[in-house]
């Protein structure tokens, strides 16, 4: 890190925090603090929704995912636009009509306080842990690559987020997210331009595409149906729709973003713009990773990108074995670079037969290189049993630090920290809202004043911030972080979605049946996660289908009690508000 990088990084972060604190001042009532006075317009809502989902993990781990596994991860997002349309039609008008603070308040109008509390608790567990991972990810990666103290980085970033989130509430979160997302995308765009520019001068962009494609890195769409493959068209479209419906429709960290809309129109437009922009945005981030992969076909990459683990194995009894693997890896790189040149020459000569021969040779050496990298990872696993032996998260930042010019490194780091802060702030904001509205004010002190609730919301933001920082200190050995955070969510999202679908679309299912259905759905998801090889995107489908099915069956056996019968929200009028006990 050169002085100009420090200036760019610190200047950006200080400006963002100061802007957040300034934008969020003068919030005295709960509506202003938790929902920005319900005055935001669709551009702010759309960017805020995108920034909430796009954490630092997105910008660090996703390019590494493309480097290691190709672009097929983009299929994970294919269900998102469908979910945005469904939610715009169904959930948004209901949430707006009821003038609720949290999504879980709505459940009480339909199923009673038990289901509301259960869903709130599931959310608090899942989001509390995810926020810890969101905070931990950039701290871990930056500490490894730049040698910063991970604990200090964690605490500093965490405290910066807590400062403006606690003081300014939702308005500060949403306003800063607009700038944070733009900075993050700007940083990625600069990285992409430099990655392409750093390719050998005789390699054109189309040739770079062809090399990446021939080496399996532009595999954006795969129509093969396989329940065990994590990313294919079907798991992305079906599993991804369920996941996105649950995440955007029932996860308070997202619902709170569009509850801030000045009208149904503003909220809907925010969601729909997200639906239109998100898939191309993820494609772009993955494409950065694919270009970094092409870059490393001409410049020797390290055998293992995690420098800390590399140093550890060099000091261990396996040092000689690792050195042997490094030498083998270097030989394979030289061989591979020669094969890439042969492939390029064949392409330029338009010689199809030679292209196929060169591709076969290239894939062969690539398979051997992958085996060498796997052997190195296994060696690292033996050096420190239980250590994270995946280096996917370190690939992109290694490229940034080693090859980007002064100033740009600071900008990309600022982009990563901005993304971390934006996702963390939404998480803390929603955790505080749910704790105060669904637990404290509903179960603890129903007649609490607005001032008391605002004060408690600020305290809860700080408390959840400290929890996230604390969890981040222990969150390691999670492999690819972007997978880890989505897997964690997928353990709960299907069940929560089942409860909301029952609330939206059934009139006769009672609170008791919904509650039982949720428990059975959650048990099914846990069983799939522990006892089967099913890819995690399908857990969302299982949780939802089993949850809804079990509730419908349970309804036949559970005696209806008059108190459980409440009017359906889909047919409810503004009188619904009287059922919500805040």
């Amino acid at each position: 890190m050169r002085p100009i990088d420090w200036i760019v990084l610190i200047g950006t972060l200080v400006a963002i925090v100061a802007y957040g604190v300034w934008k969020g001042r003068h919030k005295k009532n709960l509506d202003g603090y938790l929902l920005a006075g319900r005055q935001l317009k669709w551009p702010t809502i759309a960017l805020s929704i995108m920034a909430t989902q796009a954490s630092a993990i997105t910008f660090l781990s996703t390019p590494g995912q493309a480097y290691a596994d190709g672009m097929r991860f983009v299929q994970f997002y294919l269900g998102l636009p469908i979910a945005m349309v469904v939610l715009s039609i169904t959930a948004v008008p209901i949430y707006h009509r009821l003038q609720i603070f949290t999504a879980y308040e709505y459940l009480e109008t339909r199923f009673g306080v038990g289901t509301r509390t259960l869903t709130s608790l599931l959310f608090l567990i899942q989001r509390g842990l995810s926020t810890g991972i969101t905070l931990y990810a950039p701290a871990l990666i930056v500490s490894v690559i730049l040698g910063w103290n991970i604990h200090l980085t964690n605490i500093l970033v965490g405290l910066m987020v807590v400062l403006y989130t606690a003081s300014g509430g939702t308005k500060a979160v949403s306003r800063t997210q607009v700038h944070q997302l733009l900075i993050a995308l700007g940083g990625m765009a600069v990285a992409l331009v430099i990655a392409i520019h750093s390719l050998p001068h005789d390699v054109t962009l189309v040739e770079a595409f062809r090399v990446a494609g021939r080496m399996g890195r532009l595999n954006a769409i795969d129509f093969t149906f396989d329940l065990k493959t994590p990313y294919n068209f079907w798991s992305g479209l079906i599993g991804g729709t369920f996941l996105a419906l649950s995440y955007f429709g029932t996860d308070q960290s997202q619902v709170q973003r569009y509850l801030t809309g000045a009208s149904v129109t503003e909220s809907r437009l925010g969601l729909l713009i997200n639906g239109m922009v998100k898939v191309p945005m993820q494609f772009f981030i993955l494409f950065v990773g694919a270009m970094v992969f092409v870059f490393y076909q001409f410049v020797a990459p390290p055998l293992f990108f995690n420098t800390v683990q590399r140093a550890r194995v060099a000091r261990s009894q396996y040092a000689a074995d690792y050195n042997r693997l490094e030498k083998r890896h270097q030989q394979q790189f030289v061989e591979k670079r020669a094969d890439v040149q042969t492939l390029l020459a064949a392409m330029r000569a338009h010689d199809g037969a030679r292209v196929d021969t060169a591709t076969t040779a290239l894939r062969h050496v690539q398979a051997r290189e992958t085996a060498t990298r796997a052997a190195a990872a296994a060696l690292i696993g033996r050096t420190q049993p239980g250590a994270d032996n995946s280096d996917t998260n370190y690939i992109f930042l290694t490229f940034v630090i080693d090859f980007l010019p002064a100033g740009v490194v600071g900008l990309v780091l600022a982009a990563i920290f901005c993304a971390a802060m934006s996702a963390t702030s939404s998480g803390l904001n929603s955790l505080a809202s749910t704790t105060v509205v669904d637990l404290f004010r509903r179960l603890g002190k129903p007649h609490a004043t607005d001032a008391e609730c605002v004060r408690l919301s600020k305290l809860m933001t700080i408390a959840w911030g400290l929890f996230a920082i604390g969890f981040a200190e222990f969150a390691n050995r999670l492999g690819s972080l972007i997978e880890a955070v989505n897997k964690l969510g997928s353990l709960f999202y299907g069940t929560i979605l089942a409860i909301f679908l029952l609330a939206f679309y059934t009139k006769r299912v009672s609170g008791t049946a919904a509650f039982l259905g949720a428990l059975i759905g959650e048990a099914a998801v846990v069983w799939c996660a522990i006892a089967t090889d099913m890819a995690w995107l399908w857990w969302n489908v299982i949780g939802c289908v089993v949850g809804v099915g079990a509730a419908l069956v349970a309804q036949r056996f559970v005696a209806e009690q008059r108190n459980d019968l409440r009017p359906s929200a889909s047919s409810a009028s503004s009188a619904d508000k009287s059922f919500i006990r805040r």
Partner: protein
Amino acid sequence: MSEEPVVGGRESKSEPCASPTPYPRLPTPTTPNWPFLYSAVIIELAILIIIFYAFTKAFA
């Protein structure tokens, strides 16, 4: 699909005034054509899938 009433009359239709008022008349915002927008999102997704598939095949 019902829209919620808008507070403050920003989206409400005002009666035509016989005499000039001291307040400038706010332009009536156009209500989005929701079926068109929903279709646009889905069609864009379909186009993206086709482009991504072509991209995959073109460079594989």
